[in-house]
């Protein structure tokens, strides 16, 4: 069925294709480009005469490793019976991307969705383009290539039909899985050829040049924007048939778990496996060497693997191990002591990252200075599916099955760890039972591959328990954010000084210098969108003593919490309405100019070219107005109830949330209603945008009230969902109303998976303040007010 798909990547050809795409993007619309589409449009009939070559725009996708690919031969197969197979190359972890991107292809090529099957791509970026499903990038980077891919295939089908009929291609119109022949008046002649009948001829045609490809106009969309397509795995999920990481079964497969050092950098000094080996079902015990050289990247922690006939026996065997560990220097890591240290650092000047105007003078001349300090604990992603990977090595060729966000990055590292060529490693991507950033790190896959290798290639399923997941993650960083606002005698904020202190993710990738790197300080810190003449953003040093990693929306969590809480605190001090004051702080409608606003030269705009994805204050203010209006901002509420608002731009999208809080008599913080507005630009799957926003409120509530990871003597103190708490149905945001801002097709698609998270915690804190006068500045805040 897939014989039309290229079986081998042709890197040279694809590099060329990529270059062509990026050249077109850089050139923008050339004269000839417009001319070509005008010519074709001239002979088209309604409604297709509304079609035009969408003005291509560059995205950060072009600069990601292996860029983007839009070759229909790579992504689309059509069988002789008409079945269409679309390759889905991004990882599905709950956003719906496995459905949404193929939907874009199918819509553009006029395929009948019920006749579309999906094929999940293995990790192969030279062939498919970048597959690192992280950073809310999938739609942002691939909506254009996927439209291009589908539209090219549509034109190839139409051209094939034209050749068969000996007709002008402009009279051949693809629709609903067939091509119809029209007469010169644009009326049906009754002649049709099905996609199946055209497949072989169409797929043999050259792919049209990008500038000759015409996109559907939005009124022709059958799938995009309709909200009627259900996720492709829905039936399988509800019947237990959906395949996650641990659900592949291979003949002779063993099951393994690993005992790892409690302290990062710890090593096995000695161990005794004799009792473990006596556990019925235990097959063998294998030592895994850890990666200790800095940078450790996603290298495995090392430890002792117990291999058994069942996961149960492996867990029993692990419990019977006696291991003496050598902890190393991180044993000193202590959350309380570290928080005090961060706080002391934040009280002093730090490395200046943004410097606009003269903040010192503003503070010297201020009538009043308002200071607040916000703390955040570490958090762990804790997706419902604990990490797991299956590995098998046959004849020097390794196959890995895993729920992984970045299968090609994993593949390269696995090849290096096994000391075999990358061509000899295949990474199959299962469904991910949640990811939230944890599954973009493949230490667990390296472990499985190494254990299989030690077993002579025996298939092995290496399962992390929940305790392993909670205690051996790459954690969301802990942080102190200190904000000082200088106010003049007219009640205007004239100075803004924000200091951030947090161990950096960059410690995972290079020698730690204790400072944030552009990706972190671009997330709601140096890009604070306030119309304040004097802004200074400083970063204090904080060395990492744990593995630090991505967590859904990353540094935006603590930055939005601090900035949006502080804005409300200042509003209160000045006796202003928090919503009106926030709009005033943001100031006039404009694209913020990073150069004249003192941004650092290495300002990171979510990897996107700034001219295409600027910080637009009108869009930010619009989501605030919409959320406020829909939430009934200004309504009077009973005692111990309140509304709080917060807004944040992240991943090139704009979100505002209004949280309605209700404090029970026993102090329990409840959220009867969240009203959110999101402007993510042009979008194709509103139903999944809503579900992402609903979920973001729930995860936002976990972040705000419940979830904290603490370290004592270098080890994580929590171990499972009974002490690492997350939102449950006993207390969750009861109703999340999501308002998606409709934008023209020309407004570039922004991210959706992450941007809903950051505004929740500050909106909740602001609501609690409105309800009770209590200001909570530490995350997690706890479920009950004291």
């Amino acid at each position, binding site marked *: 069925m897939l014989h039309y798909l290229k079986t081998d990547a042709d890197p040279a050809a694809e590099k060329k294709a990529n270059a062509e795409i990026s050249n077109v993007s850089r050139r923008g619309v050339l004269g000839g480009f417009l001319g070509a589409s005008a010519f074709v449009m001239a002979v088209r009939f309604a409604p297709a005469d509304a079609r035009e070559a969408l003005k291509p725009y560059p995205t950060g996708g072009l600069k990601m490793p292996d860029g983007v690919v839009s070759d229909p031969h790579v992504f689309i197969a059509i069988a002789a019976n008409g079945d269409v197979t679309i390759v889905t190359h991004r990882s599905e972890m709950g956003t719906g991307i496995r459905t949404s991107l193929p939907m874009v292809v199918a819509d553009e090529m006029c395929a009948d969705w019920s006749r579309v099957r999906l094929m999940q791509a293995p990790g192969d970026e030279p062939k498919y383009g970048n597959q690192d499903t992280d950073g809310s990038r999938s739609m942002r980077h691939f909506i254009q290539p996927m439209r291009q891919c589908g539209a090219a295939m549509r034109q190839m089908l139409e051209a094939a039909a034209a050749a068969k009929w000996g007709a002008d291609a402009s009279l051949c119109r693809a629709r609903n899985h067939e091509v119809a022949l029209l007469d010169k008046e644009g009326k049906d002649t009754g002649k049709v050829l099905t996609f199946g009948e055209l497949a072989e001829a169409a797929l043999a045609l050259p792919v049209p040049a990008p500038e000759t490809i015409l996109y559907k106009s939005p009124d022709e969309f059958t799938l995009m924007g309709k909200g009627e397509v259900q996720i492709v795995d829905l039936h399988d999920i509800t019947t237990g048939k959906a395949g996650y990481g641990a659900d592949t079964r291979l003949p002779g497969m063993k099951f393994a778990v690993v005992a790892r050092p409690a302290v990062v950098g710890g090593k096995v000094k000695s161990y005794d496996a004799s009792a473990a080996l006596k556990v019925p079902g235990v097959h063998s015990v294998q030592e895994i060497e850890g990666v200790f050289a800095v940078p450790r990247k996603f290298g495995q922690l090392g430890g002792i693997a117990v291999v058994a006939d069942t996961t149960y026996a492996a867990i029993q065997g692990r419990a019977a191990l006696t291991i003496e560990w050598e902890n190393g220097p991180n044993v000193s890591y202590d959350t309380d002591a570290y928080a005090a240290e961060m706080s002391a650092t934040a009280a002093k000047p730090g490395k200046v990252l943004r410097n606009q105007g003269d903040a010192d003078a503003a503070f010297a001349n201020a009538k009043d200075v308002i200071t607040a300090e916000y703390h955040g604990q570490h958090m762990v992603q804790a997706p*419902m599916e604990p990490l797991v990977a299956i590995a098998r090595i046959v004849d020097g060729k390794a196959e890995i099955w895993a729920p992984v966000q970045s299968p090609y990055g994993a593949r390269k590292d696995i090849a290096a760890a096994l000391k075999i060529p990358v061509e000899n490693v295949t990474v199959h991507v299962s469904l991910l039972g949640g990811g939230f950033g944890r599954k973009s790190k493949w230490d667990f896959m390296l472990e499985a591959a190494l254990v299989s290798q030690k077993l002579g290639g025996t298939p092995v399923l290496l399962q992390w328990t929940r305790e392993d997941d909670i205690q051996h993650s790459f954690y969301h960083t802990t942080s102190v954010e200190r904000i000082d606002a200088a106010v003049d005698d007219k009640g205007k904020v004239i100075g803004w000084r924000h200091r951030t202190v947090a161990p950096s993710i960059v410690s995972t990738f290079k020698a730690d210098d204790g400072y944030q790197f552009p990706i972190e300080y671009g997330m709601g810190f140096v890009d604070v969108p306030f119309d304040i003449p004097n802004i200074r953003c400083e970063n204090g040093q904080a060395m990492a003593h744990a593995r630090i990693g991505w967590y859904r929306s990353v540094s935006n969590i603590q930055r939005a919490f601090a900035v949006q809480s502080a804005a409300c605190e200042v509003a209160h001090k000045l006796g202003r309405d928090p919503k009106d004051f926030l709009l005033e702080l943001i100031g006039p409608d404009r694209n913020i100019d990073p150069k004249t606003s003192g941004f650092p030269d290495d300002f990171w705009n979510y990897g996107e070219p700034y001219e295409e994805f600027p910080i637009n204050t009108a869009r930010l203010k619009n989501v605030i107005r919409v959320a406020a209006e829909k939430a009934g901002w200004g309504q009077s509420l009973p005692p111990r109830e309140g509304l709080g608002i917060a807004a944040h731009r992240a991943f090139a999208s704009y979100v505002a949330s209004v949280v309605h809080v209700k404090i029970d008599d026993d102090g329990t913080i409840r959220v009867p209603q969240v009203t959110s507005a999101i402007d993510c630009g042009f979008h194709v799957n509103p139903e999944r945008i809503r579900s992402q926003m609903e979920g973001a409120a729930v995860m936002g509530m976990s972040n705000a009230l419940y979830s904290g990871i603490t370290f004592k003597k270098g080890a994580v103190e929590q171990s499972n969902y009974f002490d690492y708490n997350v939102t449950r149905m006993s207390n969750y945001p009861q109703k999340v109303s999501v308002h998606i801002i409709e934008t023209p097709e020309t407004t570039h698609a922004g991210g959706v998976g992450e941007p809903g998270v950051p505004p929740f915690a500050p909106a909740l804190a602001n609501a609690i303040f409105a309800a009770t006068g209590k200001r909570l500045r530490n995350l997690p805040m706890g479920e009950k007010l004291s």
Partner: protein
Amino acid sequence: MSSVTVNGELHEISGDPNMPLLWYVRDILNLTGTKFGCGAGVCGACTVHLDGVAVRSCQTTLGDAAGKSITTIEGLSPDGEHAVQKAWRKINVPQCGFCQAGQIMQAASLLAKNRAPSDAEIVEAMSDNICRCGCYQRIHEAVRLAAGGV
């Protein structure tokens, strides 16, 4: 030698009676619809029915199940058309989907003994099933819908 019935099929069981049912159905019977989430009975991902009542299969041993009838998500309905499954699809509940087998088994157990649960009863029954993606609003709505008949 004792036995356990799983989705209507009788299985002779041997080996460690302390083995959690979870690992028996997953690693021995290869019924992978039941998920491992916490191993401590605090997340609900592994929920199955023991004689029709929702239990955590990670906290139920093979010994506990001996002589009893187990239903996993694969056996809830021969065609996947249980009222709860239909409601789940109608409301588009799942995001990543990993916890949903447990959620569905929990909801089906609730509705089997209480055909018209109040909102408070739904919350009480479902509060030990974690969904990290945060589908609670839709889970709640789907249970209501299933109770009313889909």
